[in-house]
Structure formats: structure tokens, C-alpha cells
């Protein structure tokens, strides 16, 4: 079970992807273990199918029919328990960049199972804002502008007629 979880979490970087993958896995196992015609084509995308098959190749899905449901319930529970870092971006990052960012965060923040909950905030202009353990911190360009507000206003005042 832990091996399966480790395998899943290693290359999964967002809460959304994690939940989707667990759902796909449940669907795949149900069809594989309980369907009358298991060789029937499944409704999974090629990437999903490749990812699931990589798990199967490592014999991580070798479970009997009775263990499927408890195993998936345990996986759901672990997903719920996973602490996520909420990240606000002012743009919509591509999935490959998300993986790179996730990998960077895990290695730089020292959290091997760090999962991102990605949200969109165009007012940030650039950079990002983070929420960790309920605490919000803005590291964006907007925050930089606010921090340097006085300098910016002073530079504007130089052009004012009665300054």
C-alpha cells in the first residue's frame, strides 16, 4: 500500500491531478477485477493509461478482488489527509511546467510529498502568492508595488506642478 502511494505521489504534484488519478485507478481496478470482459477498451486517456500500466508493471496492482475496495478507501483517506500548498498564479501554467515547479518546490522546500492546490488570481500581475497552514503570503509583483508605494509616489510627485 505504501509502495503504491509512494509511486502515485512521486510524480503527482497537484491536488486535482492526485484526485483524478485515484479516481482513474479505482475505475481501472473495478473494471479489471469485476468486469465480465476485462479486455474491453477502457475510457482513459493515453497518458492515464500509460501511468496506470506503469503501476501494473511494477506489480503494485496485484491485489485480490476483496482487497480492491479497502485499498481504494485507504488511498482516498490518504489523499484527504495530504497537506496541500495553495499557490495563486496570475496566469494558467501548462501541466509540464506545473510538474517542474512541483519538483522544484519539493527539493527546495524539503517536502518530498508536497502537493499544490493551484488557483488563479490575475491581480497578482506576476509571481505568485502562497497559503501554507492557513497563512497567506503574497510574493507577487503586486506586493512589490505596494511595498515600494512611497518611492513610486515620490517619483510621480516630481512631475506634479506644485510639488
Amino acid at each position, binding site marked *: 500500500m505504501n509502495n503504491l502511494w509512494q509511486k502515485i505521489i512521486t510524480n503527482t504534484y497537484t491536488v486535482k491531478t492526485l484526485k483524478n488519478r485515484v479516481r482513474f485507478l479505482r475505475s481501472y481496478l473495478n473494471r479489471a477485477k469485476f468486469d465480465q470482459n476485462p479486455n474491453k477498451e477502457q475510457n482513459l486517456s493515453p497518458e492515464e493509461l500509460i501511468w496506470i500500466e506503469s503501476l501494473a508493471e511494477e506489480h503494485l496492482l496485484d491485489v485480490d478482488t476483496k482487497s480492491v475496495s479497502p485499498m481504494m478507501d485507504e488511498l482516498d483517506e490518504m489523499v484527504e489527509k495530504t497537506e496541500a*500548498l495553495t499557490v495563486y*498564479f*496570475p*496566469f494558467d*501554467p*501548462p501541466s509540464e*511546467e506545473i510538474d517542474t*515547479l512541483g519538483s*522544484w*518546490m519539493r527539493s*527546495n*522546500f524539503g*517536502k518530498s510529498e*508536497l502537493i499544490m492546490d493551484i488557483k488563479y488570481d*490575475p*491581480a*497578482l*500581475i*506576476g*509571481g*505568485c*502568492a*502562497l497559503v*501554507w497552514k492557513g*497563512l497567506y*503570503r503574497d*510574493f*507577487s*509583483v*503586486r506586493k512589490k*508595488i*505596494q511595498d515600494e*508605494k512611497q518611492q*513610486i*509616489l515620490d517619483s*510621480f510627485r516630481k512631475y506634479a506642478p506644485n510639488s
Partner: protein
Amino acid sequence: MEVFLPVTAIVISSTLALIFLVLYLKERGSGHENLHIDLKDLDPGGQKNYQLLNEAIKKSQEMLSASESESLKMIANSKTNIQKLEEEHTKELEGYIKQFEESIKNTSAQVSQSINLASSQFNTFLQQLAEKSQQFEAANEQATTVRIEKMLDQLETKLSDFLLESEQKTTGAIDLELQSTRQLIETYKQQQLKLIDENIISMMERTMALVIGKRLTLKDQLDLVYESLEKAKLEKFII
């Protein structure tokens, strides 16, 4: 006068009583005269009784005549007495009237004298009162004049002080008001400037978000994100 009336009434009533008595006895005597009985028809006892009766009648007739004469005398005396009483009463009454008239005259004279005296005293009093009133009026007029002059002086002084004080107060109040207004204007100015500054920053942020945010390339955006993450790492935001 009131004393004589009952006496007169007694005399008159006693006279009338005597007259009625005489008349009664006469009537009775005439009745006995009819009692003429022949002695021969009577026995010796009866004759004796008859003689005794006649004697009694005679005696009674004598008594009656005596009483008549007495009553007549009494009537005559009573008339005389009444006349005397009336005369006495008249005299006494006249005396009383004279005394009363004299006392009235005396009293009238005294009253007249008293009135004269009171009138003269009253006139004197009125003269004194008029004099005193004139004196009081003069004194009052003088005192009022003095008081009015004093009040006018005080009023002038107080008015002068009041005007000076109100001038000072007004000047002070105007200064304060001016100061307060200047402060208010300054505060308002600062608030407005702060608001303008906020608006400038807000406008800047929105403009940048709309223009620069869209103009930035993915690489630029990712560079900024990594810069933010580096900052978070430096601040040890994620522990």
C-alpha cells in the same frame, strides 16, 4: 309707664267684680221677696225658722247695702287713685322727657365739639402730611438722581469692560476657529492626498495587471514565479 298699666288693670277688674256681686245679690234678694208665706199656715218650728230666715234676709240686705256703699266708695277711691296715678305718671314722664332732651342737647354739643376738634386736628394732619410728602418727594428725587448717575457710571464702566472682553473673546474665538479650520483643511488635504495616492497605486496595479500581465511571456511569468518561490524559501515560509 309700664309699671302703671298692671295696677290700672287690677283696679278696673276689681271694680267690675264688685258691680257683678252687687247685681247678683239684688237678684237673689228679689227672689226672697217672693217668698212670702202666711205664718198661720206654718207650725211653730216652721214659724221660728221663718223668722230666722227673715232675719237672715234682713241682715244680708243690710250687709249688701253696706257692701254696696263700700264698693261705691272703693270705686270712687279707685277713680281718684287712677287719676292720681295718671297725673303722677304724666309728671314723671314729662320729667324723663325733659331729662332726655337735655342729655341729647348735651351730647349733641359734645359731639359737635368733638367733630370740630377732630376736623381741626385732621386739617393740621393733612398740612403736616403735605409738607412731609413734599419733603419726601424732594429727597426721593435727589436720591433717584444720585442713583441714576451712579448706575449710568457703572453701566458705562461695565459696557466698556464687556466690549473689551467680547472683543478679546471674539478675536480668540476667531483665531481658534481659523486654527481649527486650517487643521481641518490640512487633514482633509492629507486624506485626499492619501486617497489620491491609493488611487494612483490601484490604477497602476490594474493597468499593470491588464497590460503587463498579458504581455509577459510564459518564460517571464515563470521567472517571476521562481523569484517569488526563492523569496518564500529565504523567508522559510514553508517549514
